[in-house]
Every structure is written in structure tokens, then in C-alpha cells.
């Protein structure tokens, strides 16, 4: 079989998948998202009950942990910013039919280069607020560029080497975690720190706090999140680039006939997606962490972002409520970890189930048809 035949076969698969996805109306997607989440949480509660915990108490701890106090809400919003931003990064790629599973890696290398560039530049920039702003802007630029390049790499491999991006991006995640982990422990480690981490960012690198008294949540972070969501929503729905991106994802044969260079589109999409992931990494270090640690312990924002994006049907605006749900779950898990005997990994399992159910909309259609409850999933 020749390569062009192989390509048209692959194209056929994508077009068929796209046609099925487009069948679903917006309302139906919302119905499926709500049904998936509800079913996953219910199963989580059943598991909690089956393993000897009080499901009602667990459910109420989830709620209290996410929204029960000002502290909990601040914590929820903090995680939400990260989930929404990484979720947008995933959504950009998935909308274009490119499965960027590598947002985690792009997030890690982006954040790490932000820390390194800020520490390196700090010697040349005056201390004080203005110097801090210069450092934050240049550090963020470094994060965006590094994340973009790390995203472009699997894009190039797919475009010119036909390497399946799902597998290459997963490998690049392992490589990012291992390599940055080695850098943090060795060449870039802080010799005076007992823990494995880089030196701290200078004191003037700090964002103003939000209305809540949480030092790790800034109004700038929340505005940045909203700004990126709006920007990506406009780009994908109102510009030529966004139009080409989405058509090449949903109808790649049509896109090719209208003159879109599929190879370049894959690379630009992956770069764009990686840039948003890198930006999230920069925000994470500047707003929250203040240094870089071993990336195997910083949380799986880039992975959960896949669930966030899928739950939102890869719509940048839908990522906001989906990200809030995940931010709430993450915030609740730190509450559960302290105030409950239930192992927090249960929440990770629930997240996995959400993704599983989102993948099978047909399941809910059949349930809806059987029970005659067409209402929310028709």
C-alpha cells in the first residue's frame, strides 16, 4: 500500500469520528458531560461505601473541601486556573484533531525554564517592583517559548516522520519529568536547600493577591486565565487560522482541498497548544511555587487537563466550568487527605471514570432511550 493510501485511510477514520462528534448538539454534549460526571461520582460513592466508609460523609467532605470556606474557595480557584489553562492547551490540539497528550511535559519544561531564566536574569535587573515586573514578563516569555518548542517537536515528528503523536507526547512527558528532575537535583539544585529544588525566585517576583487572603492566588492569575480563554475562543471561532485548524481536525480532506497545508497545520497547532501549556507552567511557578521541585511531585495538571477538555467537548468556553469541577475536586482532595480516612486516590479514580464515560456518549443515548428520559441526553 502506498503512503497516500495510508493517509487517506487515516483521514477516513478521523472524518468518520468527526462526523459523529458533530452530530451531537450542544445541549446533548452538556447532558453527556453532566451525566458522565454524576455517574462517575456515584460510582466513587459506591466504592467508598463498599470499602467501609460513610458515602454521605465523603460526599459532604467533597463539597466542604471545595467550597465550604473562604480558604477552600481560594484553593479551588487556584487549582481551577491551572486546570482551565492546561485544559485550553489540550482543547486547542484536540479541536484540530491532534491528540496532544504532552501538555504535562510542556507545562513542566515551561515552568522550569521560567524559574531558570528569572534566576539568571535577576542579577542584571534592579530589585523593586519594576524589576519584578520585567523578570515576570521575561520569565513568562521564556516559559511560553520553551513550552511551544517542546510542543512543536512531536508536531514535526508527526508531520515529517508520521510518528503517532499520542505515543511521542507520552514519551516526551516521561522525558520532561526525568530530565527536569535530574536538572533540579543536580546542575540547577539549590546547594543550601535540604529538599530537592532550585533556588527561590527573588522576592520582587510576586503577583498581587486576589480578594481572598491566599498568598498563592492572584487576581492576575484569574484574569490571565479568563483572557487566555477569551483569546483562544476568538482565535478558534473568528480567525482564518482557527477556521483552518478546526476544519483540518474535523474534515481534513475538505481542508486539504481548500489549500491548507496539513503538515504545517499540525506543527502550528502543537506549537500553539504547547505555548499555552508553557504559559501555565510560568504562572504555576510565579503565582504558586516560587521555585522548581522534582516534577514527579508537582501534580498531574497536564493529564487531568485531558479530562477537562473532553468534558468541555474541546470547547474553550466549556473548559471554564469543566476546570472549575476539577479545581473543586483537587481542592476537595487536599481537604479529604487531612480530614478523612478515605485514601485520596479515590478522587483520581473518579476522574478516570469521568473520562471513560465521556468517551462513550452512545451509552447515555441508549440509557436515555431505554428509560424514556430523553430530556437531557437526547
Amino acid at each position, binding site marked *: *500500500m*502506498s*503512503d497516500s493510501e*495510508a493517509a487517506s*485511510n*487515516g483521514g*477516513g*477514520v478521523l472524518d*468518520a*469520528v468527526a462526523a*459523529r462528534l458533530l452530530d451531537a448538539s450542544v445541549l446533548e454534549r452538556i447532558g453527556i458531560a453532566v451525566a458522565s460526571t454524576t455517574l462517575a461520582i456515584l460510582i466513587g460513592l459506591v*466504592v467508598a461505601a463498599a*470499602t467501609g466508609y460513610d458515602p454521605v460523609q465523603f460526599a459532604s467532605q467533597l463539597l466542604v473541601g471545595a467550597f465550604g470556606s473562604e480558604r477552600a474557595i481560594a484553593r479551588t480557584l487556584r487549582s481551577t486556573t491551572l486546570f482551565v489553562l492546561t485544559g485550553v492547551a489540550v482543547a486547542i490540539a484536540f479541536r484540530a484533531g491532534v*491528540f496532544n*497528550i504532552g501538555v504535562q511535559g510542556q507545562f513542566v519544561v515551561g515552568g522550569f525554564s521560567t524559574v531558570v531564566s528569572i534566576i539568571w536574569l535577576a542579577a542584571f535587573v534592579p530589585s523593586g517592583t519594576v524589576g519584578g515586573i520585567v523578570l515576570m514578563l521575561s520569565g513568562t516569555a521564556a516559559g511560553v517559548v520553551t513550552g511551544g518548542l517542546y510542543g512543536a517537536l512531536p508536531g514535526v*515528528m508527526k508531520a515529517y*516522520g*508520521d*510518528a*503517532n503523536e*499520542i*505515543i*511521542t507526547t*507520552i*514519551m*516526551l512527558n*516521561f*522525558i520532561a519529568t*526525568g*530530565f527536569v*528532575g*535530574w536538572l533540579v*537535583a*543536580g546542575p540547577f539544585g539549590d546547594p543550601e536547600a535540604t529538599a530537592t529544588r532550585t533556588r527561590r525566585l527573588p522576592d520582587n517576583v510576586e503577583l498581587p493577591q486576589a480578594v481572598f487572603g491566599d498568598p498563592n492566588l492572584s487576581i492576575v492569575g484569574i484574569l490571565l486565565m479568563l483572557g487566555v480563554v477569551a483569546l483562544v475562543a476568538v482565535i478558534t471561532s473568528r480567525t482564518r487560522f482557527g477556521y483552518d485548524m478546526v476544519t483540518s481536525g474535523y474534515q481534513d480532506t475538505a481542508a486539504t482541498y481548500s489549500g491548507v497545508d496539513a503538515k504545517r497545520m499540525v506543527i502550528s497547532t502543537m506549537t500553539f497548544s504547547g505555548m499555552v501549556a508553557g504559559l501555565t507552567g510560568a504562572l504555576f511557578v510565579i503565582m504558586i511555587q516560587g521555585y522548581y521541585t522534582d516534577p*514527579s511531585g508537582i501534580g498531574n495538571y497536564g*493529564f487531568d487537563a*485531558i*479530562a477537562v477538555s*473532553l468534558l468541555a467537548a474541546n470547547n474553550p468556553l466549556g473548559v471554564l466550568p469543566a476546570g472549575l469541577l476539577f479545581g473543586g475536586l483537587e481542592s476537595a482532595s487536599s481537604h479529604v487527605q487531612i480530614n478523612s480516612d478515605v*485514601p485520596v*486516590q*479515590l*478522587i*483520581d*479514580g*473518579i*476522574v*478516570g*471514570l469521568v*473520562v*471513560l464515560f*465521556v*468517551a*462513550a456518549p*452512545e*451509552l447515555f443515548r*441508549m440509557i436515555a432511550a431505554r428509560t424514556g428520559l430523553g430530556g437531557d441526553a437526547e
Partner: protein
Amino acid sequence: MNVTDSLTVARLRLVGITIGVLAVLGAVLSGIFDVDLSRLITRGFVTRSLEMATPITLAAIGGLYAEKSGVFNIGLEGFMIFGAFTTAGTMFALGGTSPTQGDVWVAILVAIVVSTLLTAVFAVLLIRYKADQIVAGLAVWFVGLGFAPFVAALVWGSRSSPGLTSIDKLAFGQSPLVFLTIVVVGVAWVFLFRTRYGYWVQAAGENPEALDTAGVDVNRVRYATVIFSGAMAGFGGAVLLAHAGNFVGTGSTMVDGRGWIAIVAYLFGNYNPVGAAAAALLFGALDMLNVQFQTVGIEISARLVNLLPYVAVLVVLTAYGKTRIPAVVGEPYETEE
């Protein structure tokens, strides 16, 4: 170019790339680090590489059967996690922290049964409910990453198990599971390319309409291969645990990407069980180079050496990406009634 020609070219490329990778590694080692290669490639190294290759090989064979029949089981990694965890849990249930060899074998069997049951549910979602194969496969991984450490935390109060026991070596210092895997590879090859059922599997992925016309239920073939793939991935996870002797559930768990590497192994092996096993051996050897480097005194961080298999996967996929995928992978089949 007909199919036989392209397969021959593919085999030549496979051999070429493998030799290339090994030659570059050898040259780098002997050139830069001034290392005697005979000290690097020892009998222990071969043993460890084979041991490391077995879980990858088993999962890869399962995955290639599913994909040959037209279903991409991207959840291998997740099923390996379930397999490894179930083995550890069963061993602990049977013999506490000092299970017997009999317990180890029983645990492996239980793991295969449990993975078979879980994959049956997964297969129903994929085939009956036409779930998106990529997303559902990723979900299996997430579910595995969540629930295995969750149950581990319930049982042991920690995401990892205490030391249990690993399987006893048989002849030549080799684990019996290595020999078993070699047998499985042979049987899988014969079954796929020399029996009627094997042809059904291939037809389900290449030309399901023809298979349907011939009176064979395409979806039944696919159910069989998908369930087989999950069972084999679970078996792979069980073997990984039986060699390691304890369960590690932190981070990306002890499976740590081997399910993904298994997918690359069968792509690299061009959907041939023997080729997949050879590719798995290459990745297993890269994984174990770490120990060799330490013994011959090359000072490279273990963490960096451990990244070698992942880098190799990238090189292999980019240089060898154009594999001949079955015609209808990813498409649900609707019977025309």
C-alpha cells in the same frame, strides 16, 4: 509495490535501525567512556534484559491482536497496572508478606482473570457502545492510576506494597516466565498467520465486510481480540510484579510507561509477534543499561539512563513511523441486516 515487497523492505528497515541504534550506542560507549564492551554485555545483563522485555512482549502481543482486528487498545498501560496490582494483592491475601511460590502462580492466574473481566467491560464500551477508542483507552490508564493506588492504600495503608516475593529462577538463572513468554510468542505467531482464526482476526481489521459476507460475526472476533489484549496486558503486569517482588503505586506506578512502549514495540515489529518480541527486547535492554553502566563505572545519573527507552521510542517512531496499519482501525463495524 505489493504487500510482500513492502514487508521485506519493512523488515530490512527494522533490522537496519536496530543495528544502527546498537552501533551508535557501542561507538559512544567505547569512544567517549573508553569502556570494554565485553564487560558491558554480560550474562547478567542478558538475563535482566530478557526479564524486562517479557512484560512488554506480552502486552504488545495482546495489543497487536486487537489492532489487527481493527480495534486500537490504547489502554494497555492501564490494564498492566491492574495486572500488577492484582498480583500483589492476591499474593498478600494468600501468604501475607511471605507468600509461597505456589501463591505467586495463583496470583498471576487471578490477575489474568481479573484483567479479562475488566477488559470485557471495556470491550462492551468500545464495540457495543462505540466509545472513542483513544479517549476510552486513556481513561483506562487514568482509572488504573487512581484505583490501583487507592486499593493499595486501603490494604497496606500506603500506595506501595511491602516486600512480597518474586518468582524463583529456573534454568540458566532465568525466570520461568521468560520461557513461557517465548512459547507464547511462537504460539501467537502460528495462530495469527497459520490458522483460520488468525485469518479472521486479520480480515476483521482489513476487510470486515468480506468477513461478514463469509458468515463470520466481525464484532465477535473483535470482542475476542480486545478481551485477549487486556488479558495479555494484565498478564504482562503480573509478570512485571512477579519479577520485581513488590508493588509500587507512586507516581506513574511501577508500570511506568511500559504499556505505551508495548504499543511502540508491536508497531516497530510490524504487527508480527516475533518482531514485537525483538523490539521489546531492545527496549528491555536499554532499560537495564543503567545497571551495566554502574558496574563498569560509567558515571551517568541513573535517572538519565532510565530515559533511554523513551528516547529510543521517539527515534524508532520517527524513523519508522509509516507502519502498515490495518485498514479500518478505529471504525466501529455495523452489521448490515
